């Protein structure tokens, strides 16, 4: 396996990403979006598209740059640092990973459209308040050439503004994945959620919604198998994003420890805070390793990525909560104010914790793969 250190190429990519994001999507941009009621920023996405990010996992033949998962993680991490809102994870990571499994003309056209910024995706997976893609109740009933969908999907990230939605449903032949235009459709109700992290998410209700047969991706019954690589790619990239978040929150805190004076000295000279900060740094180091490892494994032996991905997502989830909790506490009063950025990190960390499987879900997978 490639070494667990970032390559020169990855470092350059990170630098380029940082420069784009610091200019066009610093944290103040998210604050501005929230305050103005915007939940997505198409212009910003076009900038990212122009930088090639939309095609990071799309084959060159379909207009992408195909740099691999580790590279996608570098981008996700940098976006986590500034809490950048974009369709990157759902579209450029998950949908691209999913679609590139097929080589028909329609799919190729869609990949090209993703790479060129003309198409975004959302995934409709959850049906309860927890991620559980292997127990789906939304039914897809065969009807002539097509299917009729009935049921509910919750917490569909990017569910309001994405152009298309990938829906996991249960049919008589087993799980099916449908690729569905996210437009006004008879029987489809879309409820925008007012998310604490100010991002786009929706609940979707399907009441006798009819889809045509060509909406079905891959074979009927193979829905979960097709979905799996996309899920793993998404979970790992989300872990990377969350590591960026943890690091950024930690950096804020660590700077504050050096600046803030109380009781006649900088609070960073208090040993109790020093040791807690040092411990947190250690936690972040371990999590970085887990994310680096997941990137390498996804690029080199993707079929054996389950363990590496779940370790990364579990660690990233846990570390982010610690990082923001210590962040608020060590900042004291200012950390609690909306005017300061730490609250944004805390809210995003919580949403990222739940999306695509929480700590217990992934730790459970780890336990199972490790034989207990």
């Amino acid at each position: 396996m490639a070494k667990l250190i970032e390559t020169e190429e990855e470092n350059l990519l990170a630098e380029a990403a940082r420069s784009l994001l610091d200019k066009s999507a610093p944290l103040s941009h998210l604050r501005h979006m929230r305050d103005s009621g915007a939940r997505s920023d198409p212009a910003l996405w076009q900038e990212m598209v122009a930088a090639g990010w939309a095609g990071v996992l799309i084959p060159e033949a379909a207009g992408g740059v195909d740099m691999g998962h580790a590279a996608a993680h570098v981008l996700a991490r940098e976006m986590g640092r500034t809490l950048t809102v974009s369709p990157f994870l759902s579209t450029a990571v998950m949908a691209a990973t999913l679609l590139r499994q097929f080589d028909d003309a329609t799919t190729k056209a869609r990949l090209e459209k993703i790479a060129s910024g003309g198409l975004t995706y959302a995934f409709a997976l959850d049906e309860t308040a927890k991620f559980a893609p292997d127990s789906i109740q939304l039914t897809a009933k065969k009807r002539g050439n097509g299917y009729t969908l009935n049921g509910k999907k919750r917490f569909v990230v990017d569910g309001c503004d994405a152009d298309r939605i990938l829906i996991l449903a249960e049919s008589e032949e087993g799980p099916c994945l449908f690729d569905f235009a996210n437009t006004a459709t008879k029987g489809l109700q879309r409820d925008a959620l007012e998310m604490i992290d100010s991002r786009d998410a929706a609940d979707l209700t399907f009441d006798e919604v009819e889809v045509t047969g060509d909406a079905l991706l891959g074979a009927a019954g193979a829905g979960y198998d097709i979905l799996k690589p996309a899920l793993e790619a998404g979970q790992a990239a989300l872990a990377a994003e969350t590591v960026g978040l943890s690091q950024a929150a930690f950096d804020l805190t660590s700077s504050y420890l050096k600046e803030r004076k109380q009781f006649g000295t900088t609070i960073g000279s208090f040993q109790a805070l020093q040791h807690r900060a040092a411990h947190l740094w250690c936690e972040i180091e371990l999590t970085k390793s887990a994310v680096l490892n997941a990137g390498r494994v996804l690029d080199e032996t993707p079929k054996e990525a389950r363990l590496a991905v779940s370790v990364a997502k579990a660690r990233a989830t846990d570390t982010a909560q610690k990082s923001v909790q210590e962040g608020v506490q060590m900042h004291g009063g200012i950390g609690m104010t909306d005017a300061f950025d730490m609250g944004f990190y805390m809210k995003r960390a919580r949403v990222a914790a739940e999306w695509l499987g929480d700590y217990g879900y992934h730790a459970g997978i780890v336990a199972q793969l490790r034989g207990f």
Partner: protein
Amino acid sequence: MATVEDHTPPTSEDFRHEIRNWLQQNCPAEMRDGAAGEDSICWGGSTWEFTSEAQKDWLERCAARGLTVPTWPKAYGGAGFSRDQDKILKEEMQAIGARVPLQSFGIWMLGPALLKFGSEEQKQQYLPPIARGEIRWCQGYSEPGAGSDLAGVQCHAADQGDTWLVNGQKIWTSYADRADWIFALLRTDREAKKHLGISFVLIDMRSEGVSTRPIQLISGASPFCETFFDNVTVPKQQVVGTINRGWDVAKYLLTHEREMISSGGNAMGTGRALGAVLSESETGQGDPVLRGGAMRAEVDSLAFEMTLERYKDQAEGGQGVGDASAMLKYMGTELNKQRLELVMEAEGSAALTWGETPASAWLRTKANSIEGGTSEVMLSIISRRILNLPG
């Protein structure tokens, strides 16, 4: 209720019976919904707008019987209840889901300080309006740049003979924008050592030169303000206790506040018990990490409740709580933060939106281990004053 007042002391069963009857007859049906959230609280004050006639009636009936401040002396608007009687009252109120008729910083904080340090005149002037919910108070302790370092007060009161001339700024003043009066720590002697030269002063918020600006928290709420004093004139008789010895009053109140914050532990978050959340959560039961964490939190929370009880018994037995209030404040707020983290986990994506979710309460708990003295300050107090470690 007449009987309650006449017999002293009535047997506790008689007392309970009478309280129950009084509540049955006087507590409006709408005030029996068990609501305890931010929206259902009656804070009182001159600008208070009752959310319903029932809320107004309930406050007035309670105030008339001294039940807004049951343990205060009758002379100052209380009911003169013993702690056991107070406990019975609370149990009976809880049994019918009765709302607390009035909450305020006057009841929690200023009242106890005045009862201990105030002159007879001050008690008669300030306590009854607090009991009736007519005057709403806020607290002016912290200042920008000296969050945890309370003794570092800079907000200045210059001696002008019969009055002070106050200039400076306070921060984290709770609901100062809606308060009628503020009790504040002011520096009255700049030459004295840090903890000396501070006085505990009562100021009318309508005084010329007082202004406020709300601070929005990450939870979306704005329970705190910045408060500015720009050449505000304050009569000297509005000092509580001795001039330049306000730190004694402040210390007493800090101890008291810690107990309040810690005992409010569960009430500050969502009103629902962790167990109930978990047993209703859709997948929480099956996740050992979450379930194990909830079991641990439940054990800890019960032990904490027993500790509150123990310290109350101790305080009543005359042994006092003293510095151990730092422990109550620290453990109460930290355990409550953990509890709300678990509630958020248990409720999964359903908790990630604003509105009827625990999200706002979860974020609010993060301030509990900062306001009223940070957890770190509490640990240092325990280390120095209880464990006698050096430094």
